[in-house]
């Protein structure tokens, strides 16, 4: 049994509490959050030890691992404290808000032989894993374009008062949504060499970006595009989609399915597929989990972390060493966007009521 504590009981923290608590090889011994209104019923009904201060938690509890699901700006400090006490760490994404510091933490964890895993859960989605296998199998030949898109309904009006809407705390669409899109690109095709044309645009927020667009270039000549927008009410929840164009075909993947188009009939048959379109569904791609909450990938990443802590590091598909590369890429986007003159982003035009037809076909004077 691994003794685990959780720090941070927000949306992800509560979800992790359920997943870790339900894991057969885990004993959740304590939770820590400054919000006392949550701690009391947890203590009363579950018997968990509760702390409102993490230092006290670290001093009083003997832990194998800690789950850090606080607002992002606290990640680095908490990870350091855990590693210094020889505690394995599962940290929510984004890992750190400064890649240099993140790199130090990676080194610290590695020097002590500790597991560091970051919650980029899309790496555990069966469909994205299948996309990676297909890409690496060469079935679509040399890839020349990858597009990673994340859309969802988070900020839909000009207000909001959590850390997610605060620039210095790791808020904004870039850290919240685009980080996933960028991390999946790194997972699938490795790191880019260049970042161009980044736009971090506000739609409703005052302080942070609501949409992110950027062009990435790769050493082998491939081009990547990341598109993220968390002000999209047409989405029921966050949707994540990857499209990869290759010389011999195309792969499109989202959480539910993988669609593969293969040009050459012989190549297709070599891989046990049909020429033209092939569709692989989540029912075929997803491995059953011991406990399900919101998606198999969340359970799978927890299981992988516990396996890694138990001595099987290969199960960790999102080590801190790769998450810090995503952090570095996020920083490149920020620098690139700052390099763009604000004047290149036109101010929002005055609201016009032209109707759909007008919007589609009308011309502005």
């Amino acid at each position, binding site marked *: 049994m691994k003794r685990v504590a959780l720090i941070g*009981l*927000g*949306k992800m923290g*509560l*979800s992790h*509490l*359920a*997943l870790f*608590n*339900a894991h057969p090889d885990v004993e959740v011994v304590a939770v820590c959050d400054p*919000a*006392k*209104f*949550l*701690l*009391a*019923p*947890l203590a*009363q*009904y*579950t*018997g*968990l030890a509760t702390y409102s201060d993490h230092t006290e938690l670290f001093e009083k509890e003997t832990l194998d691992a800690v789950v850090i699901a606080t607002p992002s700006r606290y990640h680095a400090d908490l990870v350091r404290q855990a590693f210094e006490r020889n505690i394995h760490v599962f940290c929510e994404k984004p890992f750190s808000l400064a890649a240099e510091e993140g790199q130090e933490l990676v080194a610290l964890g590695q020097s002590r032989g500790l597991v560091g895993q970051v919650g980029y859960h899309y790496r555990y989605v069966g469909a994205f894993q299948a996309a990676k296998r297909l890409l690496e199998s060469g079935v679509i030949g040399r890839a020349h374009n990858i597009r990673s898109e994340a859309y969802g*309904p*988070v*900020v*839909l009006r000009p207000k*909001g*008062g*959590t850390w*997610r809407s605060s620039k210095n705390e790791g808020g904004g669409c870039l850290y919240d949504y685009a980080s996933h899109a960028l991390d999946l690109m790194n997972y699938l095709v490795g790191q880019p060499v260049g970042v161009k044309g980044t736009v971090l645009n506000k739609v409703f927020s005052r302080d942070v970006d609501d949409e992110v667009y950027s062009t990435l270039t790769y050493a082998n000549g491939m081009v990547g595009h990341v598109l993220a927008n968390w002000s999209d009410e047409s989405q*029921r*929840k966050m*949707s994540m*989609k990857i499209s990869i164009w290759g010389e011999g075909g195309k792969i499109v993947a*989202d*959480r*539910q*399915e993988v669609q593969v188009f293969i040009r050459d009939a012989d190549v297709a048959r070599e891989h046990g597929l049909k020429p033209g379109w092939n569709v692989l*569904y*989540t*029912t*075929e791609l997803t491995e*059953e*989990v*011991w*406990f*399900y*909450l*919101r998606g*198999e990938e969340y*359970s799978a990443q927890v299981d992988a972390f516990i396996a890694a802590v138990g001595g099987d590091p290969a199960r960790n598909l999102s080590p801190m060493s790769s998450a810090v590369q995503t952090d570095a890429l996020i920083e490149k986007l920020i620098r690139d966007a700052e390099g763009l003159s604000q004047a290149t982003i036109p101010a929002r035009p005055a609201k016009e009521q032209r109707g759909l037809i007008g919007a589609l076909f009308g011309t502005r004077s």
Partner: protein
Amino acid sequence: MERVIFGDNQFFGVNHMSEEKARAQAMRFQDTSEIIRVLDSAYDAGIRAFMCTTHDRIEAICDHVRANPERYADFVFYPCMPYAHKYANAVTEHGLLNALGKMLPDSGALGAVLKGGMSMAKRDMQGIGELLIDAEMKMFHGTRTPVIFLQNVVTDLLLGMGLHEAFRIFADHIRRKYDAEPGFITMNTPMLLKALARVGIENPIICSNINKIGFRMSGGKDVYEQAIRSRSFRPIAMSVLASGAIPAREAIDYVADLGGVEAIVFGASSKANIVQTKALVDELFLPATA
């Protein structure tokens, strides 16, 4: 409890196989009369129960049913609460406590907590839970809701966290205030059964995936099968076709053969599909489990 239940995923852009299909369905059903047309097809095919999340748009369906009592003389709603994305998005936008505040009418219990730093005492948790249930049930006033479900994200979150006492609060309030049977939707039936037994909820109605390929039957298909045969709970099978991965006849045959399943819930978007599936249920499931 009705033996055949009509589900609502197709109306709200939920499709476990394809986001494209989900979007196409969301477009088609953004017109409420289109939903009603499909519901009418189900009702006319002999399906009396509509199991629906407490999505804002269900209110219009409730209005329609209330306005046409003769047309819907035997129609019953099986509400499933809450519509979890409503809460999840609100928590992301406002934080947990403020989101909770937005979901509730003014209440003393929450007000005290909101003032900051206060702990939530036992009675407060029960009180807040009951207020949340009442807020979700408001749209159904004047309709029949003989079974009321706790939706799976919430059931499984509470289950995993070990807040099993909340199931008791839910079940008691549903029985007392709504004179209805409490039901639980879950993706983790074996674990939930143990938790419900621990808080003294006997022979519970549990709606979960039950399908031949074991899709999203966490805890293991064989454990589900064993539990169903033991008849220690009242199972409702959903995702019987595993989003189309299993041919309909084979899928329903499997559930019928298990013996102890009390009801099947399925969703469909066309009259032809509804009639066809209902006919298969009548042929294979109802006689086998009568």
